């Protein structure tokens, strides 16, 4: 059977997130409890979490989370990385041995920063260095796979039900200001840990529920811009689109939402002139980044979170607020499980981004 990335696998899913608007850190326990409620939206073939604010002592360093699936991979990876990066420290990512999670690869994290010479060579900043490294490692070093590459954040994922994945990675031991979670229902048995979600690139992470019909139009556009789609999943291409729009093109997350879940022309045509010109510009210039088909996504980024639904609203996505906390989930039940009484609750509208940022700027 072909592995993930060798062909395209559609998947259904559950997603959930908890965010603190003040940037205060809290335990990862709640997110595991929340996603566990939606067990029947997953099928045990992938689960994972993106956790923001978990490495405050090393917040200026890039945290690479890496899977090694063959023996030689770690040596090759470390040799490669030490050529371009200062390695602050590295360690095995702590895991709890449980019967539900099997066939684990070697899982390590590295706190690194590009060497000045490499930054000078790349010319467009440290983020671009990391961007290149992630693609180079994942496509060129056999058996090595960087699945998390942001600062002060980390992705934890595996093949299994998400609540088991949470226990496996001992998520309750981490504290952060934002956690997102994903349970996967692929229409297939990929059995490859890299294919689980969230998918991340630099500080950006995406959990996604849906199956986008624009996939190949989006993929081919992103490949033109230098992104290599190795997993052939919707989440991967959505992450690249958002990285391209926000980091490379300088759009805000709100503007990016207007690109990927663009308003319909009939609405744009009724807008006041200035707004219409802007909306037309975004649709026209970034037409290849429009995403069609059902999706609900939760995007984690440095200092904030965005929930977004496709423009027809073909997937559910509930948002609740309680004090400084914000909860998001595919189903209301996943919110009530960890927050039985909230101040208010609403469903994200089709194509309307729901964005929260830590008060006073980035964490």
């Amino acid at each position, binding site marked *: 059977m*072909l592995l993930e990335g060798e*062909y*395209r696998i*559609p*998947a*259904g899913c559950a997603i959930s997130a908890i965010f603190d608007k003040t940037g205060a850190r809290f335990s990862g326990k709640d997110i595991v409890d929340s996603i566990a409620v939606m067990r029947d939206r997953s099928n045990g073939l992938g689960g994972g979490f993106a956790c923001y604010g978990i490495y405050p002592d090393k917040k200026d360093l890039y945290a690479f989370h890496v899977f090694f699936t063959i023996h030689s991979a770690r040596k090759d990876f470390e040799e490669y990385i030490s050529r371009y990066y200062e390695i602050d420290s590295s360690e095995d990512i702590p895991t709890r041995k449980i019967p539900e999670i099997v066939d684990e690869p070697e899982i390590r994290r590295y706190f690194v920063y590009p060497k000045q010479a490499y930054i000078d060579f790349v010319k467009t900043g440290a983020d671009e260095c990391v961007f290149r490294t992630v693609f180079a490692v994942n496509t060129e070093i056999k058996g090595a796979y960087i699945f998390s590459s942001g600062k002060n954040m980390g992705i934890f994922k595996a093949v299994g039900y998400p609540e088991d994945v949470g226990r496996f990675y001992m998520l309750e031991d981490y504290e952060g200001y934002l956690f997102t979670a994903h349970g996967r229902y692929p*229409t297939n048995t990929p059995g490859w840990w890299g294919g689980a979600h969230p998918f991340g690139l630099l500080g950006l992470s995406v959990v996604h529920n*849906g*199956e*986008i*019909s*624009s*996939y*190949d*139009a*989006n*993929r*081919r*556009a992103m*490949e*033109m*811009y*230098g992104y290599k789609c190795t997993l052939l999943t919707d989440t991967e291409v959505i992450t690249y689109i958002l990285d391209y729009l926000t980091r490379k*093109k*300088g*759009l805000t997350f709100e*503007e990016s939402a207007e690109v990927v879940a*663009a308003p*319909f*022309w*009939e609405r744009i045509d009724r807008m006041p002139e200035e707004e219409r*010109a*802007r909306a*037309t*510009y*975004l*649709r*026209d*210039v970034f*037409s*290849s980044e*429009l*995403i*069609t*088909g*059902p999706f609900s996504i939760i995007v984690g980024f440095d200092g904030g979170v965005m929930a977004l639904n496709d*423009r*027809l609203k*073909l997937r559910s996505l509930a948002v609740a607020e309680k004090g400084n906390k914000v909860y998001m989930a595919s189903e209301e039940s996943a919110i009530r499980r960890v927050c039985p009484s909230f101040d208010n609750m609403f469903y994200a509208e089709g194509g309307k981004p729901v964005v929260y940022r830590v008060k006073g700027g980035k964490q």
Partner: protein
Amino acid sequence: MIDFNVAPFEVVRDYDKCVNCRVCERQCSNEVHHYEEGFGKMISDSTKCVDCQRCVCLCPTKALKIVPNQNSFRPNANWQQKYLTEIYKQAESGGVLLSSMGNPEPFPVYFDKILINASQVTNPSIDPLREPMETRVFLGAKPQTLQRDEKGNIVTKLPPRLKLSMPVMFSAMSYGSISYNAHAALARAAEKLGIYYNTGEGGLHKDFYKYSANTVVQVASGRFGVHKDYLESGAAIEIKIGQGAKPGIGGHLPGAKIVGDVSKTRMIPEGSDAVSPAPHHDIYSIEDLRQLVYSIKEATEYKKPVIVKIAAVHNVAAIASGIARSGADIIAIDGFRGGTGAAPTRIRDNVGIPIELALGSVDQRLREENIRDNVSLVVAGSIRCSSDVVKAICLGADAVYIGSAALVSMGCHLCRTCNLGKCNWGIATQRPDLVKRLNPDLAAERLINMLTGWNHEIQEMMGGMGINSIEALRGNRLMLRGVGLNERELQVLGIKHAGEV
């Protein structure tokens, strides 16, 4: 002299039905039918028949049919009848064989070997009767960098572009090769539909300047009818380098068609042949093309997109790559099945490549070079129906040009004798008595009807795939699968075989 050839068609008349009304006689510019007083009945001369079906359609009692002549030369798999026929013609005339409309030979039609996807379970299909289903397309270059003003707002000025309500335009057909009324119909339909028609190389008749917002004006190697007002009156300007039906050669509109307003519009004397050179004599290289593109842009103050139209030839991807860096905003590629008013038969039937393969390689090449955003791609030759449009967009086109399909909607039956100038349907002729047969209002309505139908079908197919905006279809090759194609063909098209996941 003995005519070695036999009539390709036979006119069959059901005398039980024929009432001697002589409509067929009046309708046939080829003078096939006449009333024989002595016999008291209609007689037909099949040797003159071109199978345009005009008499068949207009016969009030449906007494006529035109069938292939059953008379047969001795069958020979190598020496097919058409080769003998053509040799006899050339042995008589010593001339170059001429043909009209697109290549009719049985080369593979790749569109017919490609199938479209639909959603099941994992992704809902969308009902275009209940939900918005968007087919609006912009053609033109995309800006490389996003700029903001001092307040941080996006600067929304864009390079010049065309706005289409659906991804279809009428391709270049000159006034001269087709009639005034045919041009009027195309212009009116384009305006009503929110798309564009194309003047071809014959200039723009003064009556049609009012449709300029929906007009693409063409600059071809003969530069017929090109002047400042002409350039300024177009919504876009197309530099025609080549045509799918006759790549590598120019054009020739016989002096017989250069009459009256055609002569005025082309700015050449009545009765003189309009000969377009094979190349543009100011474009012998890609850098020369760039200079012409910018000359035109300078002349029109950078307000109009410039289209460069080429024929699909073997190295089309490399040529397109050069054009995408020439300052052109749109590349139009015309496949080897594209139509023509007249082309040497040998060239029409043997030069160029299928548009599907050309599109497959051009779109991929431009993406590999990261210059796909520099240009929009418009493909032609031949798009026959809405599913051809959908397949072309999935392969990577932004829009398509239709020529033959537009003429067919007005009545053309592809008899492929446009070069004779005696079109019974009033389309490819300048004879006033024939031109007036084509009512421009009715013809425009037929064009509008056809494309309205196509647009509904495009929307249905998009909805079936769970796609509600045409841009998500563009280049979406995963929505296509090939049937009966070999590995290499699939590779060029960039699609998988049916049954592959």
